[in-house]
């Protein structure tokens, strides 16, 4: 019979608050990157999702993602609808030393931030009404099943040995791929010029990145689901990769463009945090340095390629979260070692090359499903209400056109 551990419970409850703060942090991160006429609408995407998915997660999200499997490892049943049967006692399956409700709430914070990440792709041109319907549908039909595949003990990707400590595939790859599909579907912003896409408030973005970095300790170390050595490992690997990726991105931008970009430090840190997420509880601090280096370099390259393309993924969600998430998943297959986490698996460098293959299967499965489902949802919602705002609204800015408010008085 599982019993509650006070230390573990305190840490998980604290982690809920830390991860919750990441979504307002993301709102500021994205808000600073857009033009001043769209800052409120961009912030609103994340903040509304914080309310929306808080409710849908309790009503049906948690049971679909973590409820008893319906038989094929694809989706959970409705046993825990509205958290009925999820109480103050620990679950027999998940986080067996903390109240089941605490585990459900912790996972809910992941469910909240994942669709919020996608919003960076369609910033400055998506109709709010369409966004709301998309957020409900995507969190239900994409996030919940993918979380079940990877994190339910009966999930089909778990059965293949896919490792994802805190959401490299479930959160970042799924949202990054969805962002790419959304950017392609909705099309480029009108009248784009290089100057018109410059961030309107870099300090706001850096503040957001700082809050994300802070909250990520709950995201990754909280995923240890206990106040223990594994959580300490995750804290160190998370911080190390973030730092390494930030200084790598800055160095590359310095050499490439001639200036050490402040914005690059913020985006680079986030890229490192993304990449270390699936690996945080499976790898050593030294491996985290290499993961941070790779994340800074590869995501920087991906962002440069996107700039040269016609794809208007406005805030580079795919370059940072899609590419970073996939990179981190592969790196987990390379660097994982049971010397760090006996409950995990060894990776390539610990004598198990097959783990890289398992990780690639996970990447392909999650990426393909997210792409197909996202495209289908956008098509269906576009039949109900146009996804994109009218040209005159886009020109005026979504703050005024969609919300009747402006961020800054003239």
């Amino acid at each position, binding site marked *: 019979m599982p019993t509650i551990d006070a230390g573990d419970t305190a840490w998980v409850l604290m982690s809920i608050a830390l991860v919750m703060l990441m979504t307002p942090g993301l709102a500021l991160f994205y808000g600073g990157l857009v033009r001043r006429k769209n800052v409120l609408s961009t912030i609103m995407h994340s903040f509304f999702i914080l309310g929306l998915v808080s409710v849908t997660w309790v*009503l049906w999200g948690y049971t679909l993602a973590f409820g008893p499997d319906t038989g094929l490892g694809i989706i959970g049943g409705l046993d825990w609808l509205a958290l009925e049967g999820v109480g103050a006692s620990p679950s027999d399956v998940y986080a067996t030393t903390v109240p089941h409700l605490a585990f459900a709430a912790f996972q809910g914070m992941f469910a909240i931030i994942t669709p919020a990440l996608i919003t960076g792709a369609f910033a400055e041109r998506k109709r709010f009404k369409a966004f709301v319907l998309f957020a409900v549908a995507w969190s239900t039909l994409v996030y919940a099943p993918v979380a079940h595949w990877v994190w339910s003990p009966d999930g089909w990707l778990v059965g293949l040995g896919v490792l994802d400590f805190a959401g490299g595939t479930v959160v970042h790859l799924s949202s990054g791929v969805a962002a790419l599909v959304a950017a392609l579907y909705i099309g480029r912003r009108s009248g784009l010029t290089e100057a018109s896409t*410059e961030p309107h408030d*870099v300090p706001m973005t850096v503040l957001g990145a700082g809050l994300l970095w802070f909250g990520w300790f709950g995201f990754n170390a909280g995923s240890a689901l206990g106040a223990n050595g594994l959580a300490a490992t995750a804290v160190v690997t998370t911080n190390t990769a973030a730092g390494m990726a930030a200084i790598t991105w800055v160095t590359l931008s310095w050499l490439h463009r*001639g200036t050490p970009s402040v*914005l690059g430090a913020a985006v680079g840190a986030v890229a490192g945090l993304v990449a270390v997420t699936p690996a945080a509880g499976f790898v050593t601090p030294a491996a985290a340095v290499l993961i941070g280096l790779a994340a800074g370099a590869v995501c920087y390259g991906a962002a440069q390629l996107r700039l040269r393309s016609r794809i208007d993924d406005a805030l580079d969600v795919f370059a940072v979260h899609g590419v970073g998430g996939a990179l981190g998943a592969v790196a987990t297959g390379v660097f994982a070692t049971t010397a760090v986490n006996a409950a995990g698996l060894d990776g390539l460098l610990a004598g198990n090359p097959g783990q890289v293959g398992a990780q690639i299967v996970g990447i392909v499965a999650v990426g393909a499903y997210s792409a197909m489902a996202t495209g289908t949802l956008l098509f269906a919602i576009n039949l109900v209400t146009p996804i994109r705002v009218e040209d005159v609204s886009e020109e*005026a800015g979504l703050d005024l*056109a969609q919300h009747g408010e402006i961020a800054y008085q*003239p």
Partner: protein
Amino acid sequence: MVLAALASFAVLLVAWIVAPGESRRPDIHDEPASQPLAVAAWPRA
């Protein structure tokens, strides 16, 4: 109670579907020039 909770969300969902898609017809104001320092600090290739 569970049904009541689901129903309350369903009411909001219907409201979102029937709500106006554009809040109001906007008056267009020119976007102020971009931040010169930002442009200077992060020039595009």
